[in-house]
């Protein structure tokens, strides 16, 4: 009978599409968490790079009467690292401690932070951990800029 054969069609349909719906919702959740984590990490990297860029080589600055302005590599790296350690300690619990690479040249600080975030739903497809990375540069600027600045 036609009605008998078509019994519970919606149930079959739901059973087939439920994994798809849940996958979509799961992807949205994990994707969203990934975006939020990436944004927080970027904020830390930006701050760390700028913190490092405040550490000038004072001896060279004085020796050149303010003409030669360069970063003190050791101080700049230490400042950037101090910033990263302080800020990351207050953030979400990562799967493993994030790794930080800090590169300092004469007028630029480069901060690269790499971390791993555990997933909630993508585990189903054996994607337990997703890497998150943020990179930031800060250059030394000097002199009087147009507009007065702070």
């Amino acid at each position, binding site marked *: 009978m036609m009605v008998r054969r078509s019994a519970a069609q919606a149930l079959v349909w739901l059973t087939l599409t439920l994994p798809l719906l849940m996958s979509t919702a799961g992807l949205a959740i994990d994707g969203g968490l990934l975006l939020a984590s990436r944004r*927080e990490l970027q904020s830390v990297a930006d*701050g760390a790079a700028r913190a490092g860029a405040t550490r000038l080589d004072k001896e060279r600055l004085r020796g050149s009467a303010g003409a030669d302005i360069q970063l003190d590599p050791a101080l700049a790296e230490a400042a950037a690292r101090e*910033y990263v350690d302080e800020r990351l300690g207050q953030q979400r619990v990562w799967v493993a401690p994030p790794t930080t690479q800090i590169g300092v040249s004469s007028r630029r600080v480069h901060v690269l932070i790499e971390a791993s975030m555990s997933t909630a739903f993508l585990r189903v497809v054996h994607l337990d951990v997703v890497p998150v990375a943020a990179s930031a540069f800060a250059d030394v600027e000097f002199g009087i800029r147009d507009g007065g600045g702070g």
Partner: protein
Amino acid sequence: MTSRVFNCHTTRPLRDAAADDRSSSTRAPFRGVKLAAGLALLLVPIAGAAERPYGWLVAGLVALALLVLASIIGRHVSWGWLLVLVATAGVVTPRGDLAVIGPALFVATAICLLLWLANVRSGGGKHGDGRPRPGSREREAQVLMGMYGERHVGEILARELPQEYVLINGLKLPRGAGDIDHLVVGPTGVFLLETKTMAGRIVCELDGSWRRTRIGRGGTPYAAYIGDPAAQVQRNIFAVRESLRTRLPGLFQRSPLWIEGLVVFAHPRTELQAGHSRVPAVRLEEAAPRISLHVPQRWLRDAEVDQVVEALLADAREGSVGAGLAAQSAQAVVEVALLLPVVLALLFGTIGLSRVIQAQTAVVAVAHEAARAGALGKSPEDARERMLQRVQLVAPGVGLDARRIELEYNVSMFRRDPARVIAVVRYPLDFRDLPLGGWIPPSAVRAEHAEWIDPFRSGIGLGVDDSP
């Protein structure tokens, strides 16, 4: 004898018909087990992944136990109540140290829901009108006897009615009350026959109700089911009249066509007292003479007999298609109504979560901007003012309501080394505009950002101009 016989019944052996009746009964194989197994295969990995490594194991064992239960004694389990029980346990049971029960309860709820939905229509309870339960031996015997009786009555009518009469067996019309066992169309009119093959004493009371009494093996009389055959005939008369009125309106002008109803009792051991019946009730041997000797108000010509037969058969053909579609549509509506909450919960849950993530990303940006603005201040007071202004400026751009933002600031380290300002932004979330969002407790997102102050900036006196 008439050779003009139309059989609208499906040509099945009697034992197949009994088997069909059995298949819709409580003896039928419990439905939905295979579907539940498929659902378990899909849900166990999904749910178990949340609590590894034992989530899969426990959820799998629970699913297996339910499937075995359904296979063995599924018909005797009240799946609806079990569903309520499991779902309630899923809500109220604290996870704590037993986190693995979460996936197991989730899978169990889904399986119970599916099994309940798949079997909710099959019924299985006892009928309150004394009718034998589907699947019972008595019901099976009744079905077999009924079909045998209908076939027997059809043969007798075909043999005893003159050739001018047309006999239609098993006609089913839209809006009818089930099959019309026999419809006879001939010069004396249209006759609708409902066959009852029931032994025992059958009485139609003064109020029109029917009563059937049988004698048990020990000689004790007991009441047996009969229903109201007269009402069934009357509903089918109405269906035939409506069908003919639509297709052959000419028959109902001038002298309207009168449709006769008959309840025919075919069992040889029927003791009939039906003088008060609204529809004439006769024994089988009286049926054909009553039809052929009837004196109608309006006689039907041969051409009219053919028109009536064609109209009714055409209506039955179209009605079977329409009824099937209507039943399917109604069933689909019910199922969609049941499943829609699940889909909507997923949809609105995803929307709500998207809002949380968007707000979290936005407050990170606002905290960042506020701290950077504060780091450009000339003094702690100036830094505070700059942070407040900055928040008001950038919040709308990232989709936040500036009036609802709560800003905390720390400028106590403005003149230390390293000097810094810290901005903490908190933003309350509101889900009340989402369905069921009012149930979500008040929550907020928070972000903090520290910004180091450039010690070489003029005018803030951080002690870097320490001349030798």
